[in-house]
């Protein structure tokens, strides 16, 4: 068995286990030490990942895809996880058991990574399961806070149904096509095998199951709740990291289906439109910032689906997908880092005049939002730009137009927040969390602005990436 192909994942597991053990043994004040272990694990895993650069092959009997898409998705997952870890020690300072949190976080990251790398439907199921199970835990981590347990429970309820649907769908596909490996499925579908109503049911359920991880319609309802109720580092993590994995996973599934076979792409387009519209409209009058970010991240999932729609129709679709995911991740993490740094401050009214009290945090929030809208020169602009280019190139002009209209809608609520932050009159002082979270805010804001510089590099490496099965 080519264990080396799994080296980064193993590093993560090892780090998770060490973190767990450390948490079990270390005294209370050193619990945050697990964070260091986790970060070390991530660093090692990143290094190992870079060794896989340029690989494009299946391994582990076709269950694991080593390709550019999974590579970069996993890099993003690890970086995002690392960022969430930065937010955590300050946030969980009162929680005596938060050493274990990092272990779960690492396993959740692993779940997302395995989603991105899954080359087999069964592997996909188990990856989704890993990601979900850890996700519920992360969301409900604040056991003594009603909203957190509520968020965890809802997340679980949604997830349980979605996973049941997912596995049912996969059973049907597997039963009808006789195989679960992507390579074989692609061949089978190309030959037109198994085309039957039951297969449609299977795909319908599978896509719904993945849509759950993506936070897309119809299984989007958990996202705002988790964004609002989960501990902020968890919320940051859960609105970003599983999506990265799920995006690649869904892309792979869509790639399996030849464009002429079923109108899967039109379906994804419809989902994209529904998702972004719903997310944006629901966020319009939101007066809770965390929930607003949650809804906006529903909407962003819709944009993300645009790239998946044109997969195989436009040569740049994968590039756009990766670029957009990256830009979204940075923007969303930045927004949550500000929320975390401000001690979870969430009522919009509390943000009035933030610019006076906390100029850096205010600026970071505004930049994050500008990035999420797609205003240049933030990185979000390039995400949207490549997305629009590829969508139009793929022949889905109407989708691009709808997305543009949606962007205008989204500007309304983002600008509303920006307006409050800059034009409002401040009331009272604003307490912040700690140095580390402040550092995270700085990092995020700078990343948003400076990632404009390596855009070319990013685009060209993304461009070289391939998505298995070819």
């Amino acid at each position, binding site marked *: 068995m080519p264990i080396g192909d799994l080296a980064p994942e193993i590093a993560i597991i090892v780090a998770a286990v060490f973190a767990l053990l450390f948490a079990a043994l270390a005294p209370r004040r050193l619990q945050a030490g697990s964070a260091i272990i986790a970060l070390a694990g991530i660093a090692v895993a990143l290094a190992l990942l870079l060794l896989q650069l340029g690989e494009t092959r299946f391994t582990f009997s076709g269950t694991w895809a080593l390709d550019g898409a999974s590579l970069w998705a996993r890099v993003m997952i690890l970086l995002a996880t690392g960022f969430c870890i930065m937010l955590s020690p300050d946030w969980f300072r009162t929680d005596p058991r938060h050493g274990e949190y990092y272990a779960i976080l690492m396993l959740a990251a692993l779940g997302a990574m395995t989603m991105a790398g899954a080359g087999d439907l069964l592997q996909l199921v188990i990856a989704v399961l890993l990601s979900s199970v850890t996700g519920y835990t992360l969301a409900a981590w604040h056991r003594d806070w009603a909203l957190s347990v509520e968020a965890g429970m809802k997340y679980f309820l949604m997830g349980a149904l979605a996973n049941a649907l997912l596995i049912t769908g996969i059973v049907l596909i597997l039963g009808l096509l006789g195989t679960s490996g992507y390579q074989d499925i692609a061949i089978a579908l190309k030959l037109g095998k198994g085309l039957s109503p039951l297969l449609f049911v299977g795909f319908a359920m599978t896509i719904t199951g993945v849509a759950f991880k993506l936070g897309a*319609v119809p*299984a989007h309802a958990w996202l705002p709740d988790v964004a609002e109720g989960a501990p902020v580092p968890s919320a940051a993590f859960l609105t970003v990291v599983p999506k990265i994995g799920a995006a690649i996973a869904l892309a792979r599934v869509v790639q399996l289906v030849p464009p002429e076979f079923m109108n899967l792409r039109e*379906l994804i387009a419809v989902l994209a439109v529904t998702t972004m519209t719903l997310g944006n409209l629901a966020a319009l009058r939101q007066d809770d910032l965390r929930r607003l970010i949650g809804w906006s991240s529903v909407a962003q999932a819709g944009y993300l689906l645009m790239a998946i729609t044109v997969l195989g129709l436009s040569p740049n679709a994968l590039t756009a997908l990766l670029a957009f995911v990256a830009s979204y991740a940075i923007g969303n993490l930045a927004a949550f880092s500000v929320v975390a740094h401000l001690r979870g401050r969430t009522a919009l009214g509390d943000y009035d005049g933030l610019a006076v009290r906390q100029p850096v945090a205010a600026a970071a929030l505004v930049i994050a939002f500008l990035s999420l809208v797609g205003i240049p020169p933030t990185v979000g602009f390039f995400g949207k730009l490549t997305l629009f280019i590829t969508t139009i190139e793929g022949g889905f002009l109407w989708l691009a137009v709808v997305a543009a209209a949606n962007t205008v809608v989204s500007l309304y609520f983002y600008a509303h927040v920006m307006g409050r932050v800059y034009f409002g009159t401040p009331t009272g002082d604003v307490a912040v969390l700690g140095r580390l979270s402040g550092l995270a805010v700085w990092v995020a804001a700078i990343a948003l602005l400076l990632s404009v510089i390596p855009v070319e590099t990013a685009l060209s490496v993304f461009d070289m990436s391939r998505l298995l099965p070819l």
Partner: protein
Amino acid sequence: MMLWLLPLVPILAGAIIATLGDRSRLSLGIMTVATLGTTLLLALLGVSQDWTATLVWTDVIRLSAAFVPVSAAVAIMVPTVALAVVFHATQNESKSGLARLIGLMILFTGGMELVVVANDLLTLLIGWELIGACSWALISHKWRKLDNPQSGLYAFVVTRTGDLGLFAALMALFTATGSFDYAGIQSLGGPLQWIVGFGILFSAASKAGQVPFSPWLFRAMAGPTSVSALLHAATLVAAGAYLVARLHPQLAEVPGFEATAIAIGLTTALAGGITGILQNHAKRLLAASTSAQLGFMFVAIGAGYPSIAVLHMIVHATFKAPLFLSAGIAGDAAGTYRLDRLRLGRELPVVAALTIIAIAGLAGLVGSGGGWSKEEIIKASEHTGFWLALTVMAGGALSAIYATRFQLLAYGRRDKDADSRATSAPGWVALIGIAALTMMTLTLSLLWFSPVAETAAAALDTTLPKGSTLVFGLSLLFVFTGIAIGVYLVRYHPALGATGPAAIASDWLGLPKLIDIVLVRPADAIAVAAARMDDRVVDRGIRGTAACGDWLARTAAKADDRVVDRGVRGTAVFGDWLARVGNRFGEAITDGIPEASARLTDMIGQDLRRLQTGLSHHYYAYIIGGVFAIFAILVVGA
């Protein structure tokens, strides 16, 4: 290039003087003499040296200036008259804002010079609009009274409406020839030619106060008297006639151009004459007369004698300016411009004497410059047709009537038993301007000597029209009849003008009653006449004429005031209404579309948000419904 100096010197100097702030009358006078004197010198020099100038904006847009005989004459006339008028203003106008007034007047003169020397439509338009704007500033001069700026606005908007014609001509000319040169107009044909011709005529008519634009001239009376003098004599109003005269060679080919010019001119001459007769406001009488006189010029141009028109313009300038100035002095002295209240002959003998010289021109008396040029116009129109000459003569008679009225009413002697008024006669400095102008008028009487006239004609590169003695005789008859009627009117109906449409006075009531008697109840009048036949016949004849004239004038005035004025005002009101409606509803609609869509989005957003009930079983329902929907989409696509 030197030719640019001619307009530029007064424009710059005027601008500087306008911003100088308060200065004494003396220093302002010196400045005026210096500036306008220089201008005059420049004009003379330019004419003698035949200066030209161009200013390149782009390869296609060149501003150019040059003299032709017609413009040379006007170019000299303008600063000459302006010098006198402005100097008069420095000595007589009220002190407040005097520097600004003088500066603007000088600037105004410069603008006029630009119009005069312009050799292409663009340059012309620049000067043209410039004098329009100056007229606004000058009419609004006493801005503390809101009426004045309103009048200025009115004048500017009306004249600018006319300017649109020039714009149209400009556009058409360029489209056809790719340049703005006057020279290009001749080569035109078809609708573009038509646009150019009538655009220019339209524009000129509006500036010249021709029907139907005449009312603005009355409103323009809101300005100081010197401004009126300048406006009517040398600049704005004259510019209208000048333009058509200047471009006559180019425009004569335009079908219907000459006929229209004659029609406009004639209508205005008659309507203006009658209005003038009926005016009881000294300045308005003169204003109406300006319209009428410019009407003569239009007729002359239409008859094919632009040079005659220009000559008349020059002559007109020299007598109209002193008349206005004198009216101003009289008005200042009496505190009113109501003719029936003036009769300042005793108090202002010098002014009265000077005015008489000028008024001779207005009346068209033989021996006066005005008389000469009017006769020339009659001669010219005779070439078109006897009827035209006759009509012009009638117009001349009307001029004679109102000129007589003006003179006698303004400077007649009052009954001895009237209260003596404490008026101080103006000092000699204050009269220099008016005296100078009168001298010019006198000088122009020399035109009656045919060598002088021939020289003038030669200078203008034209020949004088030959007229028949019969016509000349008739014309004289008309003039003297007019004077007689005027004398009669003054004697027996001194308050006649008080019924003028614009005046509101208590003694108005007399005349309507009289008209009522004469027109409505002729039988009664005949019955009364039985006793004193002679008297009555004459009386009735005159009364009848007067009544007729009055009726005509009233109709004309009504047409002017009600129809035209209301038309203009109506347009303004309509524009206002449109603006307000546009603002309220149009904007509501155009803005409503985005606003409403925003609100709709908001509402849908609210509704969609309520889907998120917080209850997981609803979310379950969404998921299951979603699966069904996705399945349906897939099936439909298959």
